[in-house]
């Protein structure tokens, strides 16, 4: 059979049911082979959209997301989703066509060295040089993408090689990768030391991140945290790993986290970091970050440990393995919960003094925070929410209380505007029985607006709740606060008539401008049997608070 036919056999063997992509010259053989393949192809309208859809698919389901694209511009359009998947550790495989082998290096039509271009932003990449390698590379790609710390893998296939005839034999056993041995089990001695340190801590904070969700360890995390009255905070990527609201829940930490979470980090004597990476949005000014704390750092990626903040007790391992052991060792010590009494008193005091709050309007104006609260009520807190990047993303993180993992999909590390709509499409394909809502910003939505057509064509009933403030809101906020209100290029000006635009794509378009009608409008949108855009006009110049100004310490939170 042709190598391209074998490609789909290999994808079937990996359990792939859906791929997202766009055809072009260099991947014509692959698209021809698609006729006989048993998987479903979702035809996107831009490769970036296909890539983010695959990410949404992976984040919602935990399965590997797959994208197909052609050479040259098709491949370069994938650079943003690849970089995004790298930053947020999303298991993804990107399969690109390449020009014929005799054209490589000649600046042929639609030639781009995509392996070279993506080198800094892939977990691994492989260029097929012999058609007989192809299926082995595919299996290796899936193995690398999904194991250890997940990430994007690129497989680049020259057009002539995907057309070549090969003898396909199904792979037996895992691929041979002598240089790839992701750690799994944590060192039990280190785990015991960690348990003992924790039992002796009077002001502990458990700080969890997206690694818990990637490891499928949210239940283990909750059991560990609730084995004692341990205060819990999560990063933006970790939301849902611990059920919010909960009496031990401090809220999200970091730049737009709660004062309680950030102050607790500031005063903690021991911080247990699970599957997070001390990003600058968490630490603020590094030299003043958690100055009183010792650190236990649990991560599957050894390079994350002591990268930004030196760990006193490093534990390299999968959270799914480490957390139950840590829990067992900790319980065996029968720690005295009353030692935390004073600490909880302090925390309750912060929670009482500094709750998340906003000044609601006294008329029909819709405050953006109110919109998120209305969304929480309309979806009964039980939807997959995707978001773009900016103020609306932070408000969603603050006011939508995620109770389960894989319900909050957003671009955290790379901060990719335009992520929300395509990732919602991918999430809905992966989880057709769940309500999927994209909370979009008007600045972001237009960046991948073409994907309206993808949802319409494939009848993917996602809902887009557009938080329309007519601005690049977060940039506007920074110009207001840190650049002397010298506003530059942040007004959206000539925005489209959003409901009309949605209708032009075959969606249902709705609009809401009055607070009193918002919940019903949302419920009506959710009840429609098809994709819906709900354009919600919110306060134009609301700021997202509280915040740690960039480069400052948790103590310096404003708002």
């Amino acid at each position, binding site marked *: 059979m042709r190598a391209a036919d074998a490609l789909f056999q290999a994808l079937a063997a990996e359990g792939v049911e859906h791929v997202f992509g766009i055809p072009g010259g260099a991947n014509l053989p692959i698209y021809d082979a698609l006729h006989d393949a048993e998987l479903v192809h979702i035809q996107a309208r831009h490769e970036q959209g296909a890539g983010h859809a695959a990410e949404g698919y992976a984040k919602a389901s935990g399965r590997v997301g797959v994208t197909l694209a052609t050479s040259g511009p098709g491949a370069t359009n994938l650079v943003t989703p690849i970089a995004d998947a790298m930053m947020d550790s999303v298991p993804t495989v990107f399969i690109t066509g390449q020009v014929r082998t005799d054209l490589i290096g000649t600046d042929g039509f639609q030639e781009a060295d995509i392996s070279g271009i993506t*080198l800094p932003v892939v977990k691994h990449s492989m260029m097929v040089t012999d058609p007989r390698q192809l299926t082995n590379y595919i299996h290796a790609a899936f193995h690398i993408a999904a194991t250890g710390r997940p990430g994007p893998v690129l497989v680049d296939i020259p057009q002539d090689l995907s057309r070549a005839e090969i003898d396909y034999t199904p792979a037996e056993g895992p691929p041979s990768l002598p240089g790839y041995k992701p750690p799994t089990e944590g060192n039990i001695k280190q785990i015991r030391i960690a348990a003992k340190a924790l039992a002796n801590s009077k002001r502990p904070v458990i700080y969890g991140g997206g690694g818990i969700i990637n490891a499928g360890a949210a239940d283990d995390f909750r059991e560990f945290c609730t084995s004692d009255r341990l205060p819990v905070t999560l990063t933006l990527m970790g939301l849902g790993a611990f059920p919010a609201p909960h009496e031990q829940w401090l809220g999200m930490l970091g730049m737009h986290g709660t004062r309680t979470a950030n102050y607790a980090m500031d005063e903690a004597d021991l911080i247990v970091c699970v599957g997070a990476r001390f990003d600058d949005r968490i630490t603020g000014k590094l030299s003043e970050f958690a100055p009183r704390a010792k650190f236990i750092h649990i991560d599957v990626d050894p390079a994350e440990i002591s990268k930004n903040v030196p760990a006193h007790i490093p534990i390299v391992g999968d959270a799914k393995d480490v957390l139950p052991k840590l829990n067992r060792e900790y319980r065996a010590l029968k720690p005295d919960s009353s030692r935390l009494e004073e600490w909880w008193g302090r925390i309750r005091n912060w929670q009482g003094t500094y709750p998340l709050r906003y000044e609601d309007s006294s008329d029909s104006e819709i405050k953006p925070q109110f919109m998120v609260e209305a969304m929480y009520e309309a979806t009964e807190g039980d939807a997959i929410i995707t978001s773009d990047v900016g103020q609306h993303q932070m408000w969603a993180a603050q006011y939508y209380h995620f109770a389960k993992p894989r319900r909050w999909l957003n671009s955290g590390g790379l901060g990719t505007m335009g992520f929300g709509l395509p990732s919602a499409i991918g999430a809905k394909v992966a989880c057709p029985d769940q309500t999927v809502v994209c909370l979009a910003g008007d600045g972001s939505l237009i960046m991948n607006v073409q994907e309206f057509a993808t949802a319409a064509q494939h009848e993917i009933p996602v809902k887009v709740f557009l938080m329309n403030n007519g601005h690049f809101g977060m940039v506007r906020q920074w110009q207001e606060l840190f650049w002397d209100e010298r506003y530059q290029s942040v007004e959206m000006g000539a925005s489209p008539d959003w409901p009309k635009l949605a209708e032009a794509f075959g969606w249902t378009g709705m609009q809401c401008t009055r607070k009193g009608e918002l919940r019903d409008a949302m419920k009506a949108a959710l009840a429609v049997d098809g994709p819906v855009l709900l354009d919600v006009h919110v306060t134009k110049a609301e700021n997202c608070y509280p915040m740690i100004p960039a480069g400052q310490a948790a103590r310096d939170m404003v708002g």
Partner: protein
Amino acid sequence: MGEPGTQDIVRLEDLEVSRTLTGRKHILSLLVENRPGVLARIAGLFSRRGFNIDTLAVGPTEDPDTSRITLTLDGAVHPIDQVTKQLHKLVNVIKIRDMEPGSTTTREMALFRVNATVESRAEIMQFAEIYQAKIVDVSRRSLTIEVTGTQDKIDSFEAMIRPHGLIEMARTGEVAISKSRAEH
């Protein structure tokens, strides 16, 4: 401290972090898959993480499927632990050894082309002899000298020869191999 079931306490004030900067030169010996693009991955990793390579030598090993990359870096500037952990993330890197200074044999080769007038020629050749260097090319005005040895030896030879007028110098970068253990 890490034994099960004991009630001994880990006091938080006793916990310390290990030092990240060692303050000395490190020689990393990498066994990598012999495939196109591997060197680019390593070089790219160093540049994007801001690590500075002092020397780099690449060549085949006893196994045609693998290559050896020997690189030296300054442990006073770079956290070597972080460098090796990042290198380990590259799928094509099979093995990394941070070579122990006491139990490692290191060699570098260098070629020097030096001004050699009738008056200075004899002195230069004398230096070469002291350093067990070889004269590999001669012209009316210059000598080309091959020196092999540790980095320090080559540095020292360079210092000796420089006043005579160093026209050109080429160095390979160090390669290293661990010393065999004493047999009993």
